Each structure stands twice: as structure tokens, then as C-alpha cells.
């Protein structure tokens, strides 16, 4: 962490934007690529201040590797979550037991917190209500454990082991 | 009666009703907004030709397989004009509220004397 050089951040932003542009246009026509590069440079100059804190450091191979591994894991969790939802919605008795619980996280990075919050929201029975420092307040549709440690064990731990490597 | 025509006339009339019968200024502006949507829908449905595609002549669409581009261009203009009117109206309403502390039209009339 800490201060990364401005050039590194700028290059990282431009790179990401350029990739997004390629996806948007979906073609490799030299005209599109040229214009895309130009606009990526301009937009990058306008937004690199807010976009990233670490710059090219994000492209560390280990992080990329973990990120690639994280995607299928996450998708799997999501599908499980939806089956869980299907069960609760379609069950005639509506087996819910909701409440708001508190969790702790070891993540300190803001992007990491965002990723964790999004992951929590999309996975079984939980939705992030608020984040304050390292305290996550989570609306849980089926409260299994009211204590902070127990809830953390259930909700945040599974993701943290990936996110810690990716974002810390 | 075609459903789109029906919807656009209905939207125009609902908006008009809100403007004429409601007393709250913001509600009147919501009505105005709805009315504009109705008018835009009417224009677009006037320009539609059954079974034809959007007037963007790529991907093998020839001129005789495209709908009329003019109403679309007109509506593009009309929508932007509508939002400009709305923004103006709302800033006027904000000023009005600062002066009279109410949004009810009749109250305002009464307060003015």
C-alpha cells in the first residue's frame, strides 16, 4: 500500500479503460482502436485520481491468479444462494428467521471492503446493511448465530481468504 | 384503437388531469412530465411501420426495411426540451417554497392576498 507513483496509477487506469473499450466496441478495426486509445488516455487523465490507489501493483501475477480462482468460487456461491432463495420462496411455510447481525473483517482496503460487501450481498441469505470501519452489519435471512464471532465465521471468512490476497 | 395510441392519449389525459385538478405544485409538474411522455409516445407510434426495423442501415437493413426516422429525430428534440422545462419549473418551485413555505397552489394564492 502507501503512495504509488502517479504514472503507475495513470497507466493502470488507461490500461483497464482500453480493455473495456475493446470489449465495448467488440472489434479490432484500427480506427476504433486508435480512437479508443485516445479517449482512454483522456478519460484516464480525468479519473485516475479516484479510480485506483495502487496502480500497476494490481497486476501482480499472484493477485490475478487468485482473482481468476475467485470467480468460479463466487459463481458457485451465487448459484447456491439462489437455490437457497428458491427453497425459501417456494416453500409454503416461508422458513425465514431474519435479523441484523454484526461481523468483523480483517480487510483494511476500501476496494476489498467493497468486494466483500458485494460478495456478501450476492451469497446465501445475507445482504450488507452498513459498513463502519471493520464492522459489517448484515441482514441475515436465517440467523444461525447472534454473536459477532459466530456470524463472522459463517459469513465473511469464506471470502476473506481470497480477498485478502487479491486486495491487500 | 391501437394500444400504443390508446396509451399515449391516456397518458396525455392523465397528465392534463393532474395539472387541472391537483393542488400540489410538484404533483402538477409530475403530471406535465407524464403528459410529455405521452406526446412522445404518440409521435413515435405515428412513425412506426409494421414489420420493419430500426432506421440504422447496418447489418443488412435496406432502406425499404426501416421505419420512419423523422419522428424519432423529433422526439429526441422533444425529450430534451421537456427535461429543460422540468428543470426550470423545479427551480421556480424551489424559489416559491422559500418565499411561501408551502406547495399548495390555493394556499399560495391566499398568502399573496
Amino acid at each position, binding site marked *: 500500500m502507501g503512495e504509488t507513483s502517479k504514472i503507475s496509477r495513470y497507466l493502470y487506469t488507461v490500461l483497464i479503460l482500453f480493455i473495456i473499450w475493446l470489449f465495448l466496441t467488440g472489434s479490432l478495426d484500427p480506427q476504433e482502436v486508435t480512437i479508443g486509445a485516445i479517449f482512454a488516455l483522456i478519460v484516464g487523465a480525468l479519473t485516475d485520481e479516484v479510480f485506483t490507489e495502487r496502480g500497476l501493483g494490481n497486476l501482480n501475477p499472484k493477485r490475478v491468479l487468485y482473482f481468476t480462482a475467485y470467480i468460479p468460487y463466487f459463481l458457485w456461491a451465487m448459484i447456491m444462494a439462489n437455490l437457497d432463495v428458491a427453497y425459501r420462496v417456494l416453500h409454503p411455510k416461508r422458513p425465514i428467521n431474519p435479523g441484523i447481525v454484526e461481523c468483523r473483517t480483517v480487510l483494511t482496503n476500501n476496494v476489498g471492503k467493497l468486494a466483500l460487501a458485494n460478495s456478501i450481498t450476492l451469497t446465501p441469505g445475507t445482504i450488507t446493511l452498513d459498513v463502519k470501519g471493520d464492522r459489517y452489519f448484515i441482514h441475515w435471512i436465517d440467523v444461525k448465530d447472534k454473536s459477532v464471532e459466530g456470524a463472522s465465521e459463517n459469513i465473511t471468512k469464506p471470502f476473506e481468504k481470497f480477498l485478502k490476497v487479491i486486495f491487500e | 384503437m391501437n394500444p400504443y395510441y390508446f396509451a399515449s392519449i391516456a397518458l*396525455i389525459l392523465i*397528465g*392534463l388531469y393532474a*395539472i387541472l385538478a391537483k393542488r400540489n*405544485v410538484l404533483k*402538477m409538474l409530475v403530471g*406535465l412530465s407524464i*403528459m*410529455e411522455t*405521452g*406526446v412522445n409516445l*404518440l*409521435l413515435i407510434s*405515428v*412513425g412506426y411501420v409494421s414489420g420493419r426495423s430500426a432506421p440504422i442501415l447496418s447489418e443488412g437493413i435496406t432502406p425499404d426495411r426501416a421505419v420512419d426516422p*423523422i*419522428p424519432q429525430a*423529433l422526439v429526441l*428534440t*422533444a425529450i430534451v*426540451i421537456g427535461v*429543460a*422545462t422540468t428543470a*426550470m*419549473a423545479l427551480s*421556480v*418551485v424551489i*424559489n*416559491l417554497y422559500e*418565499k*411561501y413555505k408551502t406547495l399548495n397552489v390555493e394556499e*399560495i394564492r391566499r398568502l*399573496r392576498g
Partner: protein
Amino acid sequence: MSQYASLLIALPLFGAFFIPILKRISKSAVMPFLVLVTLIQTGIAAWVFNEVYITGKPIIIMAGGFRPPIGINLYIGHFAALFVLVIAVTSLLMTIFSFKAVSVEPKDKYAMLFLLLMLGATGMISTGDIFNLFVFMEITAISAYALIAYNKTGEASEAALKYIVLGGIGSSFFLVGVALIYGSLGTLNMAHIAQLAHLVNPTVAKAGLALLIFGLAVEAEQFPLNAWAPDAYQEAPHPVTAMFSAFVVKASLYAMGRVIYILSAVEGWSSILRLLIILGTLTVIIGEMSALRQNNVKRMFAYSSIAQVGLIAVGLALGTESGVSASVFHMFNHAIVKALMFLAVGYVAVELGGTEINKFEGLGKRMPVTAFAITVGAISIIGIPLFNIFWSKMQLILAALNAQYTWMVALILGASLVEATYYIRLIHTIWFKGEGEKVKESSVLALVMLLLVALIIVIGIYPEPFWNVMQKAGSDIFNVAQYIKNVPLMGVSP
């Protein structure tokens, strides 16, 4: 060369867009810049006027180089050339007045809105495309909303809100009318519509035309939709009031006339004319009756203005060429007189702090030039011979008699009588009541007022050359066949 007339549109736009940049350089340069832009605009307008009246041919501006039914054209014929000049001159005078009359911040925004109001009216008068008319109408209307509420008082906001709501209804109806006409003809160019008007389904055309008139009636202050006008006139900054009365209303009236006459080939067209006559008559009656009761002079003038506008609408709806010409003459005269009167009243309000009638007591001794200007304007509006409005009222009466609307003579005379009542009351208050110390009048404004007074009297004494011009302008609206011939239509036909 004639394409350079498009500077009439480009210049105010350029000026308005340039002001934010100018403001960064020097804030005090904004108002002089406004004068400069309106001055150049007046020059261009004078050149256009000269060009049109010497060659006798209208200038057709083709935007983007596409010929009319394909591209939008601006049609600066005899009428448009005349009124563009009126607009530019009035704006120039009102810019000078703005130095004194506008003190509320932010002035740079005021300058932009002022220029765009002028642009909108110019565009409305010169456009040859029915949707483009809508766009320019909205430019006028939205800048008018902002200018009315510009003083940020409660009453001003309320007046603006009224106008916005009515204007919103009006513009929606106008668009529905455009949709109907487009739906049955497939074109938006006015000349092209006129050319194809005999093909259109009469039900659709009548409904469309009625909706178009309804939409324009908001701006043109016709009866059911003119509730905003008195409030707005009273609360707007003084130069803006004068601009409203002088040309914004006139532009909408012209648009109304144009829209009506291009569809004159439609079956059952005269029923629409009758509708407009009824509306106009009601406008006159309501306007005059309300003016009688007012204690605020600016509001009184506003109602008087509404009444005159009603007369103009009646003249337009007579359906004869002389009626239209008389209307145009009345428009022109009324523009001059009302510009003068609102200028004078606004000046009084700036110096003495209000426009209630008791502020006018002893005005003849306190501000003699201004009082003289108001008096001349009032006498002129009543229709006393040797002043300009006499001739236009005369022509209106003649036209009405020609068109076999005898009762309209009674309407016009009755209106004049009512006007005489309240204007003479005002004149009496000014000259024979009250005392007060003398106020130093600004020499520039006095000069402007005297200029307008001189114009009124010149027209009153030598109406002939002006009447010739007006007849050309009137036939420009009335004679649709000529209009179609003048526009170089491309051969797109069903």
C-alpha cells in the same frame, strides 16, 4: 450572398455562448458586449430588410445546403424582414434600458437569457418548418420563464410557474398537432404542407390545426390561456416586459397566422377561423374589462396589451388579405407604442420605486419627458387621428366591413372607448394631480423615448409608405400560392 442572413440566428447564439467565457475574463464587460451584439444584429437586420424590399424576393436560408422539404429552411419574406428589424431595434433599445433597470444579480445570466429571447423570437418569425417553429417557440418560452422569475420574488415565481404550466400544456398540444399533421402528410415543411394540403383528411387537419392554434395561443395570449400574462408582465424585469409586448407575442401571432393560412386548402377550414374570431373577441372583451379595474399601471398596460392582441388575432382570422394587412399594421404600431410605454413605465418604476397609480401623481412635473412619452403612447393607443394606431384601427374596421363582420366595428369602437376611459384617467393623474420634486432624467433614455415618439407621430402623419410596406408583409402571410412558389421545393411527392 443571401445565405449570410443566417447570421441573424448564428450571431445571438454565438454571443450567448461566448458570455461564460467573457465572464471569466472580465465581469464588467458583459453588458457592453450585449449592446455590441444587439447593435450588430440590428445592422444585419437592416441589411436583410433592405435586401428583401429592394429585390422584392424573399431570402431563403437553407441550413446545411439541403433543399426545403429535406432540410430546414428559413424564410425571410416581407413580413419576416420587417419584424426581424423591429425585434433587433427593440432589443437594442431595451439593452440600453437594461443598464438602468436591472440590478439583481447574476447579470451575466440575464444577458444570456436576453439574447436567447431575442433569438427565439427571430427564429419563430423566420422559420419555414413546423417543428422548427416549435423549437424556437420553446427557446422563447423557456428563456421567458427564466426572465420572468428573474427577480426571485414570490410573485415573480408564481407568475413564472403559471406560465410554465400553461406553456407546458400548450407545447404538448402543439406537438400532438404536429404529430397529426405529420401522420397524414409525411412532411413538416410549411410550404410543402401547403402544397399537399388538399390531400389531407379534413378531420385530421382540422383537429391538428385546432391543436396547433391552441398550442400557440399560450404565447399569443388568447383568451382561455392568457391567465399568466398580466402577472408575468407585472413581475418581469421592465425591459423584458417591453420585449414581451413588443415582439414575443407578435411572433406567436404571426406563427398562428402562418399556420392557419398554409392549411387554407383544407375542407371546413372556415370553422377554424370562426373559432379564432371567437377567441379573439373574448380576449378583447376580457382584456379591456380587466384593464378598467387596475390600480397598478404596469398591470393595466398588460391588460391593454392583451386586448390589442385580441384585435390582431381577430384581424388575422378575417380571412381576407386586407384583414391580414391591417393586422400586420396593427402589430407594427402596437409594437412601437408598447415598447415606448413599457419603457417609460419601467423607467418611472426604477426612479420612483413602483408602478401603482399613486406613484404617477405629479409625474408631469417630476419627469416631464417620460410623462410626455406616456401621454403620447396613451393617446395613440386610444386611436386618435394623427397618431399611428388610428390608421391601423381604421384599416381593421375597413377590413371587417369588407368581410361582412359588421359587429366587429362595434367591438373595435367599444374597445377604443374603454381604452379612452382608463388612459384618460391615467393622463389626468399624471398632469393634473399631485406635486413632487423634479427627478433628473437620464438623457440617453430620454433620447430613446423621444425617438419612439417621433416615430409614432411620423407614422401618424404619413401612413402611406408604411401602409405599403404592411400590405406587402400582409400578402406574404395571406398569399399561400406565392409562398409555395417562393420556396424552392424539391420534387418529393407522394
